[in-house]
């Protein structure tokens, strides 16, 4: 959540493009990351992220602040975009989906190639989970949303999210252990 987010949202709802621009700058990297982990293709992730923000801007007058961060609403939109993408394109999971070149990482850590390869492996293990499990893992442990915010983004109860989280972590651990 950014400082003065409520004011920015209020101005964006009234139609002020610059206010929405600030929101875009803050949330675009997160939404892109969430979408990319799900679809694995750079161009697809860019298109879906663009479409998600476009939908948000077109429908922001319908946004109602109900005590949750604006990001929960954005994640809902992005998640629906990904669901529609899976419905229309029959993509099969393959090792080619984890092209390390798709990952842009910082250069001041261990060698870029090794890091990219690690990221690709983790992503592969993640996308072998059910879509709901993937969403919970990414939102809770990558994007660091609270249980309440995650429940809002996934349109589920907090209890359901807790259960999903527990099962998702078990499955992910199995997948990572199997690969080793």
């Amino acid at each position: 959540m950014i400082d003065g987010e409520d004011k920015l949202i209020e101005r964006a709802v009234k139609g002020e493009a610059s206010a929405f621009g600030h929101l875009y700058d803050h949330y675009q990297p997160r939404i892109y990351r969430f979408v990319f982990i799900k679809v694995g293709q750079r161009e697809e992730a860019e298109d879906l992220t663009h479409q998600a923000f476009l939908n948000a801007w077109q429908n922001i007058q319908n946004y109602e602040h109900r005590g949750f961060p604006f990001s929960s609403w954005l994640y809902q939109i992005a998640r629906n975009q990904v669901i529609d993408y899976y419905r229309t394109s029959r993509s099969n999971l393959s090792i080619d989906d984890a092209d390390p070149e798709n990952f842009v990482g910082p250069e001041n850590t261990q060698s870029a190639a090794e890091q990219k390869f690690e990221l690709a492996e983790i992503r592969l293990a993640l996308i072998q989970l059910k879509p709901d499990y993937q969403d919970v893992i990414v939102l809770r442990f990558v994007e660091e949303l609270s249980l309440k915010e995650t429940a809002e983004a996934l349109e589920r109860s907090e209890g359901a999210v807790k259960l999903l989280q527990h099962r998702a972590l078990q499955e992910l651990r199995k997948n990572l252990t199997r690969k080793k």
Partner: protein
Amino acid sequence: MNELLHQLKKLTSIESDADYARRSRQLILQSVREPKKKFSIAALLGSSLQFGVTVALTGILLLVVLGGLGIGEFLSPFHLASLDPTNLRAEAQAIDIQIQLTDLNYHESLNSQSTPSTAAPTISSSITPASKDDVQKKAAELGISSVSPSSSESIGIDEALNRLAE
């Protein structure tokens, strides 16, 4: 568990291309937004009026269609008194047709005609055209008035046809 979470944290290094982000932002903010429809009394009245007009026109159309069917039944020939088959039959039976044979002189001109060709059958000389007097005599025997339409004797058409057929 910590190892798992540590590995997941590495995914935060995923970033989009900077040029893409700039272009996308520009396109989105330049896009046209449809204004939110505001609730107002005028809009509510307008939509109600529109609905009312639609209902009224539909009702009128139904009346015209159903009324047309009713008029069609009314104008049906079988419902006009003058064209009722039962009445027509009764009227036909009540008609008293008076047929009067007028001047029967159509055979007088045949005496002067010649036979047209040798191939055609010839008229027997034993057959002579009936004279006017013969016809009138015959008509008198049958009780048929052959001269004047103002004759007092008149019979029904059925009776006349029956007498001729005898």
